[in-house]
């Protein structure tokens, strides 16, 4: 695991080496033209930065040499000294010394002594002659024989990586196309080349995805401070433990869930954990426990926020959902725990009794849901009254490529991201009943409403779906069970095509306003395939159920 200190050290080294190379370059320019203004300004700036950075890292000797050189270059720039004679020698020695010191930092060795150099620099600043000896001159000649070193770290803008990933996405689409064509043409040489292209682009895709991965720790490590602040504002004692910081995830995914995670953590401290008095009264340890952990599960990354607080009061949530008009009292009474908890993530639903300045602000946990929806992620909630609550964010490792199930409706393919699929069922009519005009089946001891995907997609108008009757069901029904916010919905499709990794392209204007589709993908055949947005489909079904 990379700690923040290590990260700072790497940044410092990379930048210091870059500064050193740049200094050497500008010194050569200055040697040719002692009055080169831009080079003088640059040397002054580089020394200034190196000084500040070295001091921040605690490398005071390095900072001191840079500081002296900065002062000297300031004087040369202001034409109080000239870049000539013995001064030139001392400056070169000084920059070489910086190089040695930076390398020593990189190699974890003690910094070489710079007393004589500092003394000479002091003399020059005071306008005195430096003391130069033969040995020093010899040493500096050795410098030119030293190996040049470049940092083996490169800093790259995320934008450039995004661009690379998009290009790879396009490549993968074309590759699939070529693969299909090669199979159709049945030319062995073409097929062999296509297979080679397939492997290479696969490797390329994973390399690019890999370059974008960062440890979840870069986000988790920000939380001790947040928890401390929220806890002290709330007058609570909280012990935060972190784990799984080295689990790898796409940098942009981490960026997108930052606010959501912040919200969950603040919520856990403000509302999840009880006050000290309440904990004592409940016979619990005074210090509340909060655990933030990351782990991988199949291809997904799970980030969990676990507290040992009061747990979700299901009945209170149920009441509030009815008060807020999110559900009728009759329906609410029939909902199980998980279905009730799902209301916590509806827009505008907040259980906070008072609006604290830290987690209140009138924003509910719906931001969590929105962030997850935009990523095609999932949220799991586990809670036990009096024992604690665990929120689990289920995230894809990478944005660009998603596992999807291709289904067919009216001879058109549609892709459903695997993150939202529970299972596929082939049901005979006897396994389907009609309840209140809705087809229902029982799966894992839960009733799951069924709806023909055809109706959801193609029925016109805003009116409710037609009442279903048993006559609608003839022969076996192919059902894809999707899951959103702990709500299951069975989509009846014509047939399942296959499971496949897809690259999703966003829909362009003006069609991007139709939220039923998360984008499009091109199949190997060149066919355009719409990617269904399960959250939007689920909402559409809930709005239109008869």
């Amino acid at each position: 695991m990379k700690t923040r200190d290590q990260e700072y050290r790497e940044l410092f080294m990379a930048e210091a080496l870059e500064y050193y190379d740049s200094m050497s370059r500008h010194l050569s320019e200055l040697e040719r033209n002692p009055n080169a203004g831009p080079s003088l300004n640059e040397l002054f700036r580089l020394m200034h930065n190196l000084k500040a950075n070295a001091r921040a890292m605690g490398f005071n000797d390095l900072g001191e040499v840079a500081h002296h050189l900065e002062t000297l270059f300031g004087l040369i720039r202001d034409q109080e000294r000239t870049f000539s004679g013995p001064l030139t020698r001392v400056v070169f020695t000084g920059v070489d010394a910086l190089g040695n010191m930076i390398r020593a930092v990189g190699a974890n060795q003690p910094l070489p002594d710079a007393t004589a150099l500092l003394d000479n620099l002091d003399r020059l600043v005071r306008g005195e002659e430096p003391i130069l000896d033969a040995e020093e001159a010899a040493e500096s000649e050795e410098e030119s024989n030293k190996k040049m070193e470049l940092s083996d770290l490169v800093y790259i803008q995320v934008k450039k990586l995004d661009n690379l990933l998009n290009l790879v996405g396009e490549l993968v689409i074309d590759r699939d196309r070529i693969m299909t064509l090669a199979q159709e043409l049945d030319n062995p040489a073409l097929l062999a080349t296509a297979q080679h292209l397939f492997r290479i682009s696969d490797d390329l895709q994973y390399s690019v995805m890999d370059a974008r991965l960062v440890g979840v720790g870069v986000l988790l490590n920000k939380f001790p401070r947040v928890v401390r602040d929220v806890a002290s504002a709330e007058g609570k004692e909280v012990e935060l433990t972190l784990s799984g910081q080295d689990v790898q995830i796409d940098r942009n995914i981490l960026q997108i869930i930052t606010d959501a995670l912040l919200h969950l953590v603040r919520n856990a401290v403000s509302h999840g954990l009880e006050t000290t008095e309440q904990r004592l009264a409940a016979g619990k340890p005074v210090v509340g426990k909060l655990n933030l952990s990351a782990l991988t599960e199949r291809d997904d990354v799970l980030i969990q926020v676990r507290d040992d607080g009061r747990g979700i009061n299901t009945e209170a949530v149920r009441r509030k959902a009815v008060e807020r008009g999110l559900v009728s009292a009759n329906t609410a009474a029939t909902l199980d725990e998980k279905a009730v908890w799902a209301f916590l993530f509806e827009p505008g639903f907040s259980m906070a009794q008072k609006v604290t300045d830290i987690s209140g602000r009138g924003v509910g946990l719906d931001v969590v849901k929105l962030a997850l929806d935009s990523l095609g992620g999932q949220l799991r909630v586990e809670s036990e009254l009096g024992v604690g609550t665990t929120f689990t964010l289920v995230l894809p490792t990478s944005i660009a490529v998603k596992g999807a199930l291709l289904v067919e409706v009216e001879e058109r393919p549609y892709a459903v991201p695997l993150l939202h699929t529970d299972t596929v069922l082939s049901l005979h009519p006897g396994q389907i009943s009609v309840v209140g005009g809705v087809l229902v089946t029982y799966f894992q001891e839960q009733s799951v409403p069924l709806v023909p995907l055809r109706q959801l997609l193609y029925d016109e108008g805003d009116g409710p779906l037609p009442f279903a009757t048993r006559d609608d069901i003839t022969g076996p029904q192919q059902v894809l069970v999707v899951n959103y916010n702990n709500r299951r919905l069975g989509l009846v499709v014509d047939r399942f095509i296959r499971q496949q990794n897809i690259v999703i392209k966003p829909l362009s204007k003006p069609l991007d306003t139709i939220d039923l589709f998360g984008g499009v993908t091109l199949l190997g055949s060149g066919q355009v395939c719409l990617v269904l947005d399960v959250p939007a489909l689920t909402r559409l079904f809930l709005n239109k159920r008869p």
Partner: protein
Amino acid sequence: MAEIELAAAPKAERAKPAELVQLIVFRLGDEDYGIRIEQVKEVTVTPEVARMPKTPPFIKGIANLRGDIIAILDLEERFRLRPAGRPLPERSYTVAVEAADYTLGLMVREVPRPFTLPLSQIEPAPEFVQDAGTRDKYLEGIAKLPEGGIIIVLDMRKLLTPSEVLRLPGKGASS
């Protein structure tokens, strides 16, 4: 579309230089329509169109045009110009037109052709165009050809605003 036919303008008018307009002309229903060539990105045989649920009927769907996914519009349907019982032909053409930040495809039944005429021949849209309530909003004007016949010149910039393109039925239900 490299070759541009010159309109057969009367010789007398040739003498003074007139500002010329190049149009891409295509047939909708039984009328000729034109779009200024600078608003046209390309003309192609219509690629496979995937039906797009939850869109008005005049949006035929989406198609893959050189890696870009664009919406394909049927203007005959939009302007209600299709005579009853005349289906779209098996093979149709798509005029890809450019809006400010996206591209749209217009599906037409016959090969579109380029046509050049003096700007002065385009008369601003008259008020008396009575049919097809929505169409006159998008007219730049009407070109009367010397040999008879007219070309209705459409202004794509007016047509292509997203709110014009998409008057989505049932949008409230899905959002």
